[in-house]
């Protein structure tokens, strides 16, 4: 039997657009109807959420994702009961604890001990319950030595730890978490996540509002995607997160284009060469003496059209317009592909492949075609370089160009070998129903991952 911990039905939330105007009018309507909005014209209000419906099953972990301003935090406040929906209904079953702001309501002048007591009672703990969990709170916050000092002497990390410790020990049935894990050092964040995992094991309901899609993928059973206050997607995390990413990529295509454009603009001669930022971290940049300059870079598909989003199996051509200040005889062209988190997916250059440079003079075009792009979905950054054989760079462009691979198949890793399934004997499987790749270029959409 599954019951719902939270049920939202066509929840709409409007806010006033101009605070502290029309005070008499809003007060009147607040008195008569309990809402400040009744007497306001539509243009004086702002709709933060519109007709959002969902249920959260008891014991499940639910995530709300969306860009900034999509209504996530408004929804969280509604779930926490801090504000009420303008229209629709929202009901929560069980004791709820909202981690909206850690340590809200701590009084700076009094000790951590007293603040714990007051904060816990504010969150609904009785004195007895507090006595029982007081030690656990202090130990969790790792503040045993400072608990009798006034809170104003705490560092912000200590403050957050104490706030989190109290909120988590209120032992709610439903825990709402608003992006608060972004604070604190790694060790503490891990500790918080462990505690949250423990909550899940004990069958408590958790609602995350987060930008951390990795977390959503790992921890959540169900995802709600909000966009401009409306439900945009809902369901299984992997699918919704991918839809969300694809949607973001739609904006990204434009973004990648503009980034390429600005990278080209930057290529104007006379630009001072910058050294790469610290070793290890993959950071975009450009350096080199510019004896040979990469003037522009274009990403083309097999039909010579400029594109930034590809599907696996397509052909991606990188076309460099290079120019040598003086004729040179020692030169190598290279490329590197990096995943979004900086892992080198592939790298090669003309020297490694035994091309022997003879002469580079004036302007030239260098082209490398990556046929049958064997990558899984993701954003990839491109390194492009012209350098000497000993490695001295002429022009090294790191991460200034990127493209995105989109795929309907949610395979994992980085590399997608061309592959085919076949079954014999007692294995009976239905072939996927026409599950081809997305069609972006309507040309050489690559290998189908479906069986024959």
């Amino acid at each position, binding site marked *: 039997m599954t019951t719902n911990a939270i049920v939202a039905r066509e929840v709409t939330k409007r806010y006033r657009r101009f605070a502290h105007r029309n005070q008499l009018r809003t007060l009147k309507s607040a008195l008569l109807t309990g809402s400040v909005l009744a007497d306001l014209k539509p243009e004086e209000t702002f709709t933060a959420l519109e007709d959002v419906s969902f249920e959260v099953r008891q014991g499940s972990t639910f995530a709300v994702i969306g860009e900034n301003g999509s209504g996530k935090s408004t929804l969280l*406040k509604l779930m926490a009961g801090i504000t009420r929906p303008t229209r629709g209904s929202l009901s929560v079953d069980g004791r709820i604890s909202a981690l909206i702001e850690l340590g809200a309501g701590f009084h700076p002048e009094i000790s951590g001990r*007293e603040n714990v007591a007051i904060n816990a009672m*504010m969150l609904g703990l009785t004195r007895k319950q507090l006595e029982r969990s007081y030690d656990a709170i202090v130990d969790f916050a790792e503040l045993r030595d400072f608990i009798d000092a006034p809170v104003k002497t705490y560092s912000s990390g200590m403050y957050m730890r104490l706030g989190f410790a109290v909120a988590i020990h209120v032992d709610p049935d439903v825990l709402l978490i608003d992006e608060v894990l972004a604070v604190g050092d790694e060790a503490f964040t891990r500790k918080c996540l462990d505690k949250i995992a423990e909550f899940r094991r004990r069958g408590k309901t958790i609602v995350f509002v987060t930008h951390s899609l990795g977390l959503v993928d790992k921890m959540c059973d169900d995802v709600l995607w909000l966009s401009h206050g409306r439900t945009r997607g809902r369901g299984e995390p992997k699918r919704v997160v991918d839809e969300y990413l694809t949607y973001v990529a739609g904006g990204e295509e434009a973004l990648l284009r503009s980034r390429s454009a600005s990278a080209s603009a930057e290529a104007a001669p006379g630009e001072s060469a910058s050294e790469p930022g610290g070793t290890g971290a993959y950071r975009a940049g450009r350096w080199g003496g510019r004896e040979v300059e990469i003037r522009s870079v274009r990403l083309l598909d097999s039909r010579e059209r400029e594109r930034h989003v590809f599907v696996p199996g397509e052909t991606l051509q990188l076309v460099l317009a290079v120019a040598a200040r003086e004729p040179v005889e020692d030169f190598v062209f290279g490329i590197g592909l990096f995943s979004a988190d900086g892992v080198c997916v592939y790298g090669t250059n003309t020297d490694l492949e035994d091309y022997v440079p003879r002469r580079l003079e004036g302007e030239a075009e260098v082209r490398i075609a990556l046929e049958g792009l064997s990558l899984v979905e993701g954003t990839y950054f491109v390194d492009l370089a012209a350098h000497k054989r000993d490695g001295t760079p002429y022009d090294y462009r790191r991460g200034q160009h990127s493209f995105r691979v989109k795929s309907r198949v949610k395979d994992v890793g980085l590399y997608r070998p061309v592959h085919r399934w076949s079954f014999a004997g007692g294995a009976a499987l239905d072939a996927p129903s026409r599950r081809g790749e997305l069609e972006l270029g309507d040309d050489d959409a690559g290998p189908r991952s479906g069986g024959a």
Partner: protein
Amino acid sequence: MISAVRSLLRYRALVQSLVSRELKARYRGSVLGFLWSFVNPLLLLLTYTLVFTVILPNKQPDIQPFFLFLFCGILPWTWFQASLAESSGVLISSANLIKKVLFPAEVLPTVCVLANLAHFLLGLPVLLAVLALYGKLHWTALLLPLPMLVQLVLTLGLSLFLSALTVHFRDIQNILSHVLHLWFFATPVIYSYAQIAEGTPLRRLLRLNPMTHVVVTYQQMLFQGHVDHWRGLLLSLAVGAVAFAAGAFLFDRLRDTLAEEV
């Protein structure tokens, strides 16, 4: 109104801790610390004594020594006045709490009133000691809980009313200090009620002021030692009950708007 009382009772542990926090935080870091609760009324008394014995001496025979009479009225008035002044701004200054934590907001103005009640109770022994010193301590002082209860109800009601309304009209905070000033002079604290002739418009005005009867009762119990102002006190109780009902109603009506408007 009943639900307001019930919710306050359910959160009494929180109210208690907040009141004690308020008291502790107020004097934290000062040299005298808790002694300020005693020193404050004494200094206040000193100021008024100076004014009304040296600058503007009051020679009314039935209220001598005048500074003692003054003390009997000022102590409860301070409770009343400070409660209202603090609670009118308390929701705004606790905006962060109201926006981020779910708890009944009426706790906050209530804490203002109760914290000032605590100050009143701490000042009372000082007053009683000085009265005893002048041989003016009467058995009627045992009846003090009655006017205190009336004052508590009245003050709570006005505090709830003002705190919620101030969220919508910040102007109240500014007006209030002047209103309270005027109210102080319209209450027989620095003069005696008996001094105002029956039938005059001023007397009629004073009768309409619920704080008049509360203060007069205090003065009778503490200073005169005979109490005959019961009808007035009852009237104040009625006004207080109405104020509480109105305050609770308004607060409840505006409750949902608080998190959005502060």
